């Protein structure tokens, strides 16, 4: 008997269920999904996000349009090396054209080496959650996983329209994220640990510094 057969067999014997039997709902019904989306004015999301994000230790910028992005973060980028994702929005904001920014990676190993050496990783964000100050990143040809992870600092630049109320709204828009991507990650604040004496230290394995730039007009 294979391990699979034995485990499923043991489960069915204990639960008194037959193979292939659909879920029984009488004794233990499955509640309908409970998604709670607050009825807040969407125009307030950017400010709410900014507040939550800064409470977590991030730094928040809000600019009027794409042209204002580079001037806003110029100081952050000076004397630093950066890797940018392939997001079209970053191109639109003029990030990929900057001399210190390496971009347009398509090879995994080259990207990994570049991210391991860079000071800053620059990405967009597919969504952002106002209630928790969270970036939502879906891995794709536009967004690699490692850009927001290996460098010690991470900047996410995204239009205001990508802001959602909270996790519940995200799950109502993406009821099955796995249909689109092998990796959806929610990033809520800088990498942190409190494993030694409960003392908070930022930047243990992921970026210790994170920045959000919200662009009002797309």
């Amino acid at each position, binding site marked *: 008997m294979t391990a699979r057969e034995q485990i499923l067999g043991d*489960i069915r014997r204990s639960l008194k269920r037959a193979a292939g039997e659909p879920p029984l*709902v009488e004794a233990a019904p499955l509640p309908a999904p409970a998604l709670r989306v607050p009825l807040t004015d969407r125009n307030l999301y950017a400010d709410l996000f900014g507040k939550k994000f800064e409470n977590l230790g991030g730094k928040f910028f809000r600019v009027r349009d794409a042209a204002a992005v580079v001037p806003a973060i110029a100081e952050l980028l000076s004397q630093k090396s950066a890797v940018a994702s392939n997001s079209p929005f970053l191109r639109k904001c003029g990030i990929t054209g900057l001399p210190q920014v390496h971009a347009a990676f398509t090879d995994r190993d080259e990207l990994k080496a570049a991210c391991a050496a860079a000071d800053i990783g620059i990405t967009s964000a597919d969504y952002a959650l106002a209630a928790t100050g969270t970036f939502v990143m879906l891995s794709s040809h536009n967004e690699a996983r490692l850009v927001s992870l290996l460098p010690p600092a991470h900047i996410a630049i995204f239009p205001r329209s990508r802001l959602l109320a909270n996790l519940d709204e995200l799950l109502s828009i993406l009821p099955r994220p*796995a249909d689109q991507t092998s*990796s959806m990650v929610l990033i809520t604040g800088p*990498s942190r640990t409190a494993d030694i004496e409960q003392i908070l230290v930022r930047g243990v*394995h992921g970026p210790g510094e994170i920045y959000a730039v919200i662009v009002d007009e797309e």
Partner: protein
Amino acid sequence: MKAPETEIQQAVDDPRLQLAIYTATRRLIDHRAGVVSDEVLPHYQDLRNEANAIKKHTIENLDYYLEQLESNVIAHGGNVVFCRTGQEAADFVLDLAKQRGVHMLVKSKSMTSEEIHFNERLEKHHLEAVETDLGEYILQLAHQRPYHIVAPALHLTRYDVADVFTKELGAENEVVIEKQTKFARGVLRQKFLQADIGVSGANFLIADSGAIVVVENEGNARLSTSAPKIHIAIAGIEKVIPRAQDLAVFLNLLGRSATGQPLTVYTSFLSGPRRATEIDGPDEFYLLLLDNGRTKLLEDPEKRQSLYCIRCGACLNHCPVYRKIGGHNYPWVYSGPIGAIITPQFHGVTEDTWLPFASSLCGACAEVCPVKIEIPKLLIKLREEVTEVQRRQGAGDLERFAFRLFAWIATHPKIYLLLASLGSLFFPIVPKIGPLKKWASQRSLPEPANQSFHQYWASRVAARRGSS
């Protein structure tokens, strides 16, 4: 096995350790309290009820959801491996590593892997498994098991950590926590970039998506699952939940209950290897579904709720016993109230018979459990089972004799009165010297009254007669 009384006494007598446990759990208690209050999370109790209902439904139909999970993982290009035991899980990893020529793997924190002594099993066959969660890494170097489900190195100070890094890695003796962290980051970063296999646990398995969810704060789980070419996830079969949308319930509870975070820093939702158009991520994905005794817990309809646990650790933080005796005095990797109910069920009630009794049944654990496991009720049930087994083994004969004797005495008033007056005469000294010494040492006994009720009643009746 008997309770490790000497070790427990040592833990209780160690002021440094007591302070460490007390401060850490106090902080976790406060952080949790701050994010589940009515003002911040008015529907907290609804979430707990929903979480309990979803877990109940899933566990009652576990075979169905495991098969659904399996077919969806395969649909996304992943592989599912059922493992009856820890040895089967380790053997699978060893075989795969051999086939791919891998000599080192990186690991993110997983209680399930601790449970099966995963690293030791691999190292026996010269496959190096590097723990990458800071706390777990320190413990691996110090050859210790986790002290707490979510704060594994809670019992160690910065000085202990400095000693471990110096002794095991030849590092300079550094006692500044930020610098210790930076040092570990540097060492482990190299491991992440070199390793060809990354192993993770899973907090949830999503049946309708064929996905796993991993929550963490450091980024080591993201690195373990994204940088190497192969990702292997090990999870107990009870971790499955039906739908991705159920995460709205569970993620809102897990971080809050564990560390007081509305969401942990990273929540990774992973399914299969990287897709054709994705730039990075693993080429191969394996999900190891582990039984290791879990199917045994399903038999009893009441006790199977032990499998609802999402390993938040809140019951440990709030438990007056855990907070006094610490994590290492529990017989298994799962400590605290949840450990006290699952250990006897995994290992058999005859193994650590003392464990279900090591509780004051105060109920704090059940009050904070995000999935509403009735821990005190299960402790009592396990006590019954332990007692029943011991009765069958002939234990408790003395106790039964004592009660029969008492019944006889109580139905013979003259003898009862005689013994009662003798009892109150000798009461002050008997517990201090007799066989009750140990029992009495933990309890404040009531002083016997100067006058027995019989005497009082007789004098009252006499007084009434006198006045009438």
